[in-house]
């Protein structure tokens, strides 16, 4: 699986796709692979504000639970309600149909310390078990 070049990535394996002043956020292929079959996704309410680093949601597989952290600060404008009945979208299409939330970005400069796809792939290789 390749990592889209136009995404930004965090050390906790979230991705961020920026379009103007809004962004779509999900978890990466590496994360879904570590988790195994996703069975349940906890998403926030539309309208909630989060700071960079806050937990915005939870992804559960049969044997594990991970918190999802905001790569940037923002207000939730949309959540992917398809995940309610099709949690497996995160497994089958983590960078596409498995998106989790869409946010209005509070501060674009916060994206500066995020990784690009090459840096993220190197990060994965360096930290491989």
């Amino acid at each position, binding site marked *: 699986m390749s990592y889209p070049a136009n995404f930004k990535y965090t050390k906790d394996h979230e991705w961020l796709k920026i379009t103007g002043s809004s962004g779509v956020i999900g978890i990466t292929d590496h994360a879904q692979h570590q988790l*195994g*079959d996703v*069975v*349940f996704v906890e998403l926030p309410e539309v309208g909630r504000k989060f700071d960079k680093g806050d937990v915005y949601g939870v992804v*559960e*597989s*049969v*044997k594990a639970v991970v918190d999802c952290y905001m790569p940037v600060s923002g207000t939730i404008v949309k959540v992917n309600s398809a995940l309610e009945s099709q*949690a*497996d979208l995160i497994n089958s299409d983590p960078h596409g149909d498995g998106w989790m939330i869409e946010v209005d970005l509070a501060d674009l400069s916060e994206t500066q310390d995020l990784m690009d796809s090459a840096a993220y792939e190197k990060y994965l290789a360096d930290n491989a*078990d």
Partner: protein
Amino acid sequence: MKQITQFPGTSGLILEEPLIFEKSVKGRMACSIPRNDVPEIDTSKLAAQGYFRSSIEGLPEVSEVDVVRHFLRLSTWNYSLDHGLYPLGSCTMKYNPKINEVAAAIPGFAQLHPKTPEAFSQSALRIMYELQNDLAEIAGLDAVSLQPSAGAQGELTGMLMIKAYHLSRNEPHRNLVLIPDSAHGTNPASSVVAGLRTQTLPSGEDGCLNPEALRPYLNQNLAGIMVTNPSTLGLFEKNFVEFSCRIHDAGGLVYMDGANLNAMMGVVKPGDLGVDVMHINLHKTFSTPHGGGGPGSGPVAVTRALEPFLPVPRIVFRDGRYGLEWNHPQSIGKIHCFYGNFGIMLRAFTYIRSMGPDGIREACENAVLNANYIKEKLKTHFHIAHDRLCKHECVFDDKYQQEFGISTLDIAKRLMDYGFHPPTIYFPLIVKGALMIEPTETESKETLDQFIEAMIRIAEECKNEPELVKHAPVRAKRRRLDETLAARKPILKWSPGIYPE
């Protein structure tokens, strides 16, 4: 080595059986109701006020023969300790003596109501009192409460007592509990239920807790440390006494998770190592049966300093009588409606009386011998992170087998086909692909050798016939079950026509 060709896991005739609800036929009955011998009463007012239910929708109507065949068939689908070895690390699956069951069924105990006036329940109270003393002696501590219903509830009780202790000394800010990353999940969970905060400590390269790791937390916020000894790696915590001292010097208390007491009883006393409070699992160390998940019993043992905080009622012996004592104003209160799982206490009492002091020590020694024997025999076939003297359990992993695409899970499933329950898998979390083996002292050398042979065969299969391992088990009542489906679309009760896709 003797060539063992006959393994227990051969196939046989195991009967299928539907859900009891699917066998229901209207009008069938399995019970016998006594005749009413008192006058009828007028229930029309209660009925008019809507107090009565019209039916119990869905409850099955079956004959007595149906009940017997149904549950008997179900029982035959279980592997159990009476069938064979359960090398489950951290669970201490030792033989469950049958005399324990007979004792628990004696009518004078089984039919004794908990609110029977004390003068008429002296024997039950005596059993509890003597068991308290025995556990205190084994633990090397001063006082015991038998009230907690399981280890986790014992942990909660212990942590509540630590919290109460600090509160009594006007130190409410002492609310941080240090817990190693190798700890059982109940440790942090219990601390949080007790209203405390937790801090995870990393285990060292040698698998043991390094006293230096404590340093940043030895301040006025420290409530204490919660540690398992031997650790969940089956290794004696060699720095235990040192970090106990450091915790005490910093004003904290030491809680010991007693799940691994089978590796110490009669040989070392936790109280001598600096433990202030610990829980004991009667359903592990003291032979009471697991029952498919419970009931257990998790007594706590404490030092004199923590005694005032024990749950009430206390079981005491005063003026030649056993009794319940409620007047303990600093007690953390109650955690059970009555006194705890008395039937389990009675089984443990019977076990301790059967073993005596020599038996207790011998059990511990043989448990440690058996684990080290297995470790020695398997370490060339399975990778072991810490190859040194272990206590009652040892932890391997699937590092060698991963080379062939086989994981710990696959190995566990294949072991079933050989007629053994798998060891504990994927715990402790600090060992990737952990395979934790605890044979206990009640297994013979022949059984151990058979288990070792089976494991070696599986290691060979991983190399030469990996597909066999990957698709195991083939002989169990059911093959691998779809846990993803069960979690994505939970069906948690039977409804007519509702089945998984």
